[in-house]
């Protein structure tokens, strides 16, 4: 948490801050450790053919960063910085606390809602936060996680949230312009750094126990603001690296490894910290005598002194964690009494960090896992001296439920030598190369290298000009697993990047509806350089589990090719089990029986036509048809 370097009114000087759990050293150091840990941790946890590493990337990426620290939006400033991706993550650890006064209010999350159900800071901070609503810029009464995630109305004010970061990362994949890609990567990794700042805060006891520790504005105003917290102050940034190989909590690690949302990871970490650790001012329970916390908002039910192991030799309250760590939570040795009011000192802080830091690292690594969109690169056809084509398929996840259509360079690699054969260009998920330099029997890999990602196709062996497949898809938009409702306008979003002078947008509409059992819809979809228009008319069975007849037309225009699909079909079975995977698929003859006629005309680059090979539906109503090129 930040230290408010406070203006010394009488002398008119600024006091610089040093060390502790603050944003110039500790948070960047923690973020650095998360990245180091995460690269190793994720080595065998990302999907096949997806790799991620940024520590070895020495390139710099221009983006918007904090160039001048300040207390308020009026005095801090942002500008263009050129940093490596690792440095952008570190910078996010720093910038999350800028400007400082607002961050001092918003970086608290009480998972128990101990004070009237409120999870945001209520201790002390609320007595002065109203001052900063004067310019409506501090957004108080916002908890740390919603601010970091940007997934609530209050959190949406955060320009550098997880939500923003995922948007920037998606744009980095979708935009074809190299400069725009790099700018988006810089912004995405800064956002990741700010999210990881939140992760670190969720393993810092005062941040999750409603214990305001913003440095007060002077002796006389101590009633208004919090006092320095020993753990915050004593935290040595070096501990982030020292505990890189420390033991984390096994149940937490299991939860993090199976988590499907980033929010759930930070919430879980906050629960763990709140439940197991004191702050100096929220020590509760009965030690040598019953004790009430100094912080009147901090009488949490857990932990309690009487439930800890007390060692009379060193006057210390211990807890043995499932990690195996024996942690000093507080001690009560006082000069004038054998045992007095417990406190958290340097030894305790260091001992606690040994338990908390490894959990931060594991949480952070899994946040990275979920932050990285996943792709499959596939070579679909490769004809010597003619063409090669393939696709980049985004694998949807709970963090990225909308399709990301990759545009940008593809490296064609000789799988045996590792040498680059040539550079291809991918546009909205499809890549085509003319007159490629390979021959029958060659083994090829298509590779994307972008912003720390390395995504490769399986090895493709060139076998000559035989029938191949082409995948197309349309969406019979349904609501959940029932087909009795119709989607209203769908997948509509836009983005303008005024700060950098660049503008790009992505939008789409899907308008249609059921009239009795007949579904009609028209749709348009624009994604970067691809424009798609289509109409669907489908007659469903009364139980909505079968399309009795379907007429579907779709025209796609890209800068590289135009494609028209005309499809009529009967008796298309649809059933939904929400298994999360494809729930229905027919191929070959069965598919031909269902789809009575289907023509695809694709102009440029090859002017190909296709016949139906198979089609399928997946769990969310996407219908795919696999086609075989007619020779």
């Amino acid at each position, binding site marked *: 948490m930040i*230290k408010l*370097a*406070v*203006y*010394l*009114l009488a*002398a008119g000087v*600024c*006091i*610089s*801050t*040093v*060390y*502790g759990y603050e*944003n*110039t*050293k500790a948070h960047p150091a923690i973020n650095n450790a998360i990245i180091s840990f995460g690269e190793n941790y994720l080595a065998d946890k990302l999907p096949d053919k997806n790799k991620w590493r940024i520590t070895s990337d020495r390139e710099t990426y221009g983006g918007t960063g*904090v*160039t001048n*620290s*300040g*207390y*308020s939006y*009026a*005095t801090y400033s942002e500008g263009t*910085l050129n940093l490596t991706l690792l*440095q952008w993550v*570190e*910078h996010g*650890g*720093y910038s999350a606390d800028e400007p400082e*006064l607002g961050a001092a209010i918003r970086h608290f999350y009480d998972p128990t809602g101990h004070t009237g159900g409120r999870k945001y800071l209520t201790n002390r901070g609320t007595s*002065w936060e109203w*001052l*900063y609503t004067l310019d409506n810029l501090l957004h108080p009464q916002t908890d740390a996680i919603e601010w970091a995630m940007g997934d609530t109305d209050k959190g949406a004010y955060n320009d550098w949230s997880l939500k923003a970061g995922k948007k920037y990362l998606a744009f980095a994949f979708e935009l074809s312009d190299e400069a725009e890609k790099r700018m988006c990567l810089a912004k995405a990794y800064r956002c990741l750094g700010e999210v990881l700042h939140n992760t670190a805060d969720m393993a810092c006891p005062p941040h999750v126990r409603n214990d305001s520790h913003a*440095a*007060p*504005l*002077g*002796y006389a*105003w*101590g*009633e*208004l603001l919090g*006092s*320095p917290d*020993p753990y915050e*102050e*004593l935290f040595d940034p070096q501990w982030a690296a020292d505990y890189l190989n420390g033991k984390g909590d096994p149940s937490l690690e299991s939860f993090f490894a199976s988590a499907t949302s980033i929010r759930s990871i930070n919430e879980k970490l906050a629960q763990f910290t709140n439940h197991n650790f004191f702050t100096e*001012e929220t020590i509760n329970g009965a030690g040598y005598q019953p004790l009430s916390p*100094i912080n009147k908002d901090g009488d949490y039910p857990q932990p309690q002194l009487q439930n800890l192991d007390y060692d009379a030799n060193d006057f210390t309250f211990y807890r043995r964690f499932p990690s195996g760590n024996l942690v000093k939570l507080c001690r009560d*040795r*006082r*000069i*004038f009494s054998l045992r*007095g*009011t417990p*406190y958290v*000192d*340097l030894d305790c802080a260091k001992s606690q960090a040994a338990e908390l830091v490894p959990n931060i690292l594991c949480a952070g690594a899994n946040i990275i896992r979920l932050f990285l969109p996943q792709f499959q690169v596939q070579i679909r056809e490769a004809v010597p001296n003619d063409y090669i084509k393939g696709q980049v398929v985004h694998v949807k996840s709970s963090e990225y439920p909308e399709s990301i259509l990759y545009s940008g360079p593809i490296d064609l690699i000789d799988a045996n030598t590792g040498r680059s054969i040539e550079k291809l260009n991918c546009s909205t998920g499809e890549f085509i190369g003319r007159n490629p330099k390979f021959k029958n029997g060659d083994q090829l890999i298509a590779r994307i290298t972008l912003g720390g990602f390395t995504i490769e196709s399986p090895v493709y062996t060139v076998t000559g000009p035989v029938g191949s497949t082409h995948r197309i898809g349309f969406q019979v938009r349904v609501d959940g697993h029932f087909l009795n409702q119709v989607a209203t306008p769908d997948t509509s979003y836009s983005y303008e990047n005024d700060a950098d002078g660049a503008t790009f947008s992505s939008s789409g509409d899907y308008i249609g509806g059921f009239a009795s059992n007949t579904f009609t819809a028209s749709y348009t979809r624009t994604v970067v350089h691809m424009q798609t228009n289509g109409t669907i008319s489908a007659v469903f069975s009364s139980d909505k589990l079968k399309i009795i007849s379907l007429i579907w037309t779709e025209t796609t225009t890209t800068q590289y090719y135009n494609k028209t699909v005309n499809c009529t079909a009967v008796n298309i079975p649809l059933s939904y089990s929400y298994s999360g995977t494809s729930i229905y698929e027919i191929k070959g003859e069965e598919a031909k029986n269902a789809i009575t006629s289907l023509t695809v005309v694709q102009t440029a680059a090859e002017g190909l036509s296709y016949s139906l090979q198979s089609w399928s539906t997946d769990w969310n109503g996407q219908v795919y048809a696999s086609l075989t090129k007619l020779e």
Partner: protein
Amino acid sequence: MKTRRIRRSRWPFGILLVSLLIICYTCTNKQSPNSPSDENNLSETPALTAFSDSLITAFSSENEDDVLALVRSEYRATCDAELNGTRNTMTAVAQALKKRQLLFANALYAEYKVSIDGTEFRIAYSNCGDGHWQLIRF
């Protein structure tokens, strides 16, 4: 004799408001992590030395109120209880403070180790951010 209450100064609200607004519109001199400065060390600043000297004086006086006047408000009740009936041993603390060992110090918090009759204790000060150190633990 029980200690007398320490009176806190009450600043006019208007001054508070103006001062906070001034703070909002003043700079900090923190540097970004890409321009590091190493300010943390274990040398005692003049302000810490001065405060330690004042503590030594207070403990030497064997006057509980003199010590309590140097204690941060939230910790006053705790320290008040600690000091109760300790008048004749306070000078030992003063002597120990003269041989204090600084374990940690930054702009807001300092922790020392002192030894009395061979037993080690921790003493801690905190700084509200205004350069005004106060005692929080002994």
